[in-house]
């Protein structure tokens, strides 16, 4: 199902190596994240390649969502959260003062655990991003962007006749695809997904996983999931988090058949989690 990409140059935290240029979309070095006094992420380093799906797995509270939210600086909205260390997207430090967080978030899109479409029409939901970023010169361009995004999200056929109806009127799975279309509409390069299927039924989940598989041809996708089966199905690379540290990161198949760390082995075999 998944052909591993850049297999040989993957790094596990035990052997930090210098990067080969242009290979990794998102990199992190020695990242610490604090919520007030409590440390949620400890010395995290990782390299995430482009055009692949990387899955973050681990027991609840291990920091995977926290780290995900660092990549598009959503943690900025939490006043008690402090992030130190280096996080690069396309080799540019995203915490650099010269970086405009508003544009960063157009480049790094996010889909949330519970679908959160705006209480607007389907069209307006998808058009929101292009509008505020000025991506469309006129109405026809905007229409095109909306149609393209909905097609890419696999939702166009189902909603093309009712674009003016409220987005909240769709089913759970459709709402989530709408949120994905919304994220795609601003032309991101990275799509972060925080447990996107946990609020959906199995059929909707399957549809989303299919979608993710298509999307990975054009985007760098990072997905947080509490389901190891989903990680196994959907991703090429998997990172195992435990108590705020990255324990192991490598090819998905290898991780699930022959993990290198004992903790990974224990989690996968269900000893804890």
């Amino acid at each position, binding site marked *: 199902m998944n052909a591993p990409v850049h297999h040989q140059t993957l790094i596990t935290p035990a052997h930090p190596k210098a990067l080969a240029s242009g290979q990794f979309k998102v990199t992190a070095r020695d990242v610490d994240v604090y919520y007030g006094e409590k440390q949620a992420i400890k010395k995290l380093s990782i390299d995430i390649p482009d055009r692949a799906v990387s899955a973050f797995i681990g027991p609840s509270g291990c920091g995977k969502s926290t780290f995900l939210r660092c990549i598009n600086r959503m943690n900025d909205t939490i006043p008690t959260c402090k992030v130190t260390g280096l996080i690069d997207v396309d080799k540019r430090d995203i915490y650099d003062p010269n970086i405009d*967080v*508003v544009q960063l*978030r157009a480049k790094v899109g996010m889909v*949330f655990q519970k679908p*959160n479409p*705006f*209480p*607007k029409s389907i069209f307006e939901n998808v058009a929101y991003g292009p509008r505020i970023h000025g991506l469309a010169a006129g109405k026809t361009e905007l229409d095109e962007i909306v149609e393209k995004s909905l097609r890419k999200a696999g939702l166009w056929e189902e909603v093309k006749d009712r674009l003016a109806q409220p987005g909240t009127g769709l089913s759970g799975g459709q709402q989530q695809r709408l949120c994905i279309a919304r994220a795609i509409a601003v032309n991101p390069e990275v799509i972060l997904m925080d447990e996107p299927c946990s609020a959906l039924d199995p059929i909707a989940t399957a549809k989303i996983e299919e979608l993710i598989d298509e999307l990975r041809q054009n985007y760098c996708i990072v997905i947080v999931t509490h389901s190891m089966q989903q990680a196994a199905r959907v991703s090429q690379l998997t990172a195992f988090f435990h108590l705020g540290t990255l324990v192991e990161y490598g090819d998905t198949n290898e991780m699930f058949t022959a993990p290198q760390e004992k903790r990974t082995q224990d989690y996968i075999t269900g000893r804890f989690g």
Partner: protein
Amino acid sequence: MFVWTVLLIVLMAVIAYWAGRTHAAGLVTAGGPRLHSLPSYHGLFTAAGAMIGGLALAIAGAFVFGSQSLLTPVAAVIGAALGAFPLYSKSSLDFRARNNFERVVLVLLITCSAVAILTTIGIVFSVLYETLIFFRSVSPIEFLFGTHWSPTGTPASFGFIPLLVGTLLITVIAIAVAGPLGLLSAIYMAEYASPRLRSFLKPILEILAGIPTVVLGFFAALTVAPLIRSSGEAMGFSVASESALAAGLVMGMMIVPLISSLSDDIINAVPQSLRDGSYAMGATKSETIKKVVLPAALPGIVSAFMLAISRAIGETMIVVMAAGLAANLTANPLAAVTTITVQIATLLVGDQEFDSPKTLSAFALGFVLFFFTLVLNYIALRIVQKYREQYD
């Protein structure tokens, strides 16, 4: 006499309590079966009987003998005794004194709750009654659609339209002031201010909300109106000394805390997930507020505005002190107009015969006012209810 009667009933109740309790306690023999209810409940039940009996005969006595007569407290005492005795004799080991007493309490609670409903019925009935009498001398059509209001003139005319226009003019000015100020304050406090700043700003709004309207009216009449007049005349306008602008402005400031606190609650009720969705798209805070939060909060904000309008329409003291008395059909904020509430106050204050059309017209005005504000409040509260359901 009244005080004596009450004191006597209370005294009888205390005696009844003591008697009932001791009697019940005396029924228990060592080693024998226990009482169903604690002795104190026997006492309470007996005392309740005393109070009800005493009150009943006191009221009857007041009707028959007159409230000043000495016979009324006597009747009360007899009533108390008559009420207490049957209950006293009911005391036995098996007697469910507590349940009976609790039944009495329940009836009492229900009666108290009925007062609130009785108030509404009372308002509607009394005001409607007088209004209907008024409509016997003045036709409703002339009242509702007439454009000349002069109840003291000869001949007296009761056209309601100038009052409606005056009320609306001042209300529009008030909302034009309070709407932006209240809403923007709420947005700033809910979205931008730090918790420390919030704890400093909220009391300021609460203090403003607690200022009695008569104080605001004084300020409007003595400071704001002359200020507007002099600056208006300096700019070349002709400004009345009781301009609608002065009254409307101060009334607007009075309403700011209302709109602000209601909007604050509503904005805070918008789920954080919507904001997160917008931020994740790369929107700035103001874009998120303007395009996502406020549209989502719109029904609640509309209802807040409706409640504010209702409050402005029903406000009396500020307009009595700062707005005019002459009915003036105009849309000019610099002119003096009068409102519904001012007319109600002016017509009913002072000694005049109660049944003249002049006095009754005040009730007709009151009825219109009550009806209007009731409709506005009802719609506003329903919107808030439905809105809450959406997010629960």
